[in-house]
């Protein structure tokens, strides 16, 4: 009897220690998660909060609004985007808006163009067998994917010379062409995976109904490929929006994009922290929103082909 109780006591004790271990483990996991969440969020928080600080608050490292420092629209006023200055004319705001517009047009334009070219090629590669000289489908796919390894710096200087001759220097169209090229491999990769997941029987049924190859593609397959297209489009958008290297070399006044504007401000002497912070916040805000609300598409775009 006594041995029995002692045995059940050890079992209980062991169970108790296991539970303690479990709780410690949980705490470690959540501690690590919270730590990394802090690492990810603090730079963003710091930038956003700095755009509401005056010089003293920056130098003294005040962090918490209303407690540490009194928030003020200072940074936003300096780029003409605060509530009291938004209705008045403002040169910095005009400059900002034109850069913003350039960024929107180039990134949306390039993503759309890449989506059109990439979807067509991906559909072809997924459904038909091509032979181009010695190249088969796999070689053609590799040819497209191999564009990824090309560092921008290799293309930048030839493009500078070519664009000068073509009168495409400092134009949005010129940037769109280049950005299309940088995202095209990724679009083809995602869309080929998407088309491969759509059963070929659907195409065949469409042929039986008398549709041509293009009719089947446009009317039957393309509507089913919308999730892949959304993922490819959003991923391209992010990459194009953040692109700096080509924009810095190939634009000067008219077609400058937001990253170039942000970079040119950091270079100048005696930067105003609050206006830089406001500018950075405005430049990253669209993508932070994309990241929060369209995370699903970005993840599905990035993980194409992984884990299979």
């Amino acid at each position: 009897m006594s041995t029995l109780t002692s045995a059940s006591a050890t079992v209980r004790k062991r169970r108790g220690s296991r539970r303690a271990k479990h709780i410690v483990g949980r705490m470690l996991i959540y501690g690590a998660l919270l730590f990394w969440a802090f690492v990810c969020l603090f730079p963003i928080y710091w930038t956003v909060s700095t755009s509401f600080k005056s010089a003293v608050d920056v130098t003294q490292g005040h962090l918490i609004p209303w407690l540490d420092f009194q928030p003020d629209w200072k940074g936003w006023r300096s780029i003409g985007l605060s509530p009291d200055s938004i209705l008045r004319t403002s040169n910095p705001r005009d400059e900002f808006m034109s850069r913003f517009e350039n960024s929107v047009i180039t990134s949306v334009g390039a993503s759309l163009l890449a989506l059109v070219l990439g979807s067509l090629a991906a559909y072809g590669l997924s459904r038909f067998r091509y032979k181009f000289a010695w190249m088969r489908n796999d070689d053609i796919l590799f040819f497209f994917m191999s564009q990824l390894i090309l560092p921008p710096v290799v293309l930048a200087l030839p493009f500078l010379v070519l664009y000068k001759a073509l009168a495409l220097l400092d134009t949005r169209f010129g940037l769109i062409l280049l950005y299309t090229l940088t995202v095209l491999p990724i679009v083809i990769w995602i869309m080929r995976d998407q088309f491969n997941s759509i059963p070929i029987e659907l195409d065949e049924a469409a042929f039986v109904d008398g549709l041509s190859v293009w009719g089947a593609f446009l009317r039957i397959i393309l509507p089913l490929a919308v999730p892949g297209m959304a993922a490819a489009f959003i991923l391209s958008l992010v990459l194009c929006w953040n692109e700096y290297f080509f924009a810095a070399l190939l634009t000067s006044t008219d077609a400058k994009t937001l990253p170039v504007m942000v970079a040119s401000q950091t270079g100048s002497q005696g930067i105003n922290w609050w206006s830089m912070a406001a500018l950075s916040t405005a430049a990253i805000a669209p993508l932070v929103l994309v990241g929060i609300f369209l995370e699903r598409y970005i993840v599905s775009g990035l993980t194409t082909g992984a884990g299979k």
Partner: protein
Amino acid sequence: MQISAAVADGGHHKPAPRPNLARRKVAGRALVAIASLGGLFVLLVQILHTTGTIRAGFTDWRPILYAYLLWSIALGVGQVMIRGERGLRALFLLPAVLFTIAVVIFPTLFGFYIASLDWNLSSLEGPHFNGLDNLIALFNDTYYWNALGNMLFYTLAVLAEYAIAFGLALLLNTDIRARKFFRVVFLLPLMLSPVAVSWMIGKSLMEYRFGPAATLARSLGWDNPAFFAHPWIARGSIDAMDAWVSIPFIMIILLAGLQALPKEVLEAAKVDGANGWQSFWHVTFPIMLPVSITVLIIRIIFKLKLADIVINVTAGGPGGATDTVSSFIYRVYRDRSNVGYGTGLAIFYLLLIIVFLSVLLRLTSRRMQKVA
């Protein structure tokens, strides 16, 4: 242009009457021929105009672009006329191929030509041929070799990024609350532009006098928290920023791999009495190896393009300690307008990358995830 497609659809199209077909084929060939001749003619006129042989021509080369576009359309129409059904199929691939040839293949070949020129945009005399002089100058350029050495460090740092990302992926794969929240938060740095990150972290958080990171370092006992003064610390700081932006990318792909992991295998390991650490090293890690190698190679490819952060935070300093090849070439062009030499450096770098990646792919191809 030899694009043909195997018949895979069971002949659903009706063959056209013979004579009609032959006439259409001839018309198609004629269209392509006329378009090609027209394009070549425009090109010839423009070349002669530029060299000053003839008066007629265009002020810039833009019409050549339009001519290429028209020729591409004619080629597409011609394909359909000559090959019918198979031409229609070729039409799917043709736009992307023609686009890539125009904006990648041609400029890269043009780059090889520029690389053999002595061409400084700021000097009055135009380009002139100097053969392999750029290549010889390159071998004596200590800054360039220094930048290549730095690339070695940055590339090796990918392993550290991978270790952190793997840890985060494992954390996200455990049974936790608010997983969606953590996943979105961990993904956010990937969304931010490297230029904005340069300012947000490099120039403000790590600011020597009152940046929060410097304040934290002081309170931890580092008297002189200059993140960009000592070569090794500067390299580390630059890489930390790049890692901050790109760890989410590795993490997301590893997480997808972990979620596709067969559950039975882990349970079997548990039944066999393996603890967490053992089951990770003997089960999870080996199964994840193909995904890991794939993501590492993709990450290395992107790492080799690293430039934005270096250009904006340190401009290569101190003394070239943080320079990447791209940022160095950027300055060769920006500060010295040396197009010929800069292109030479870039082309040499491209050749190095191709050799390096070929070896890497050859070594890992058996272990890699089947890509194509």
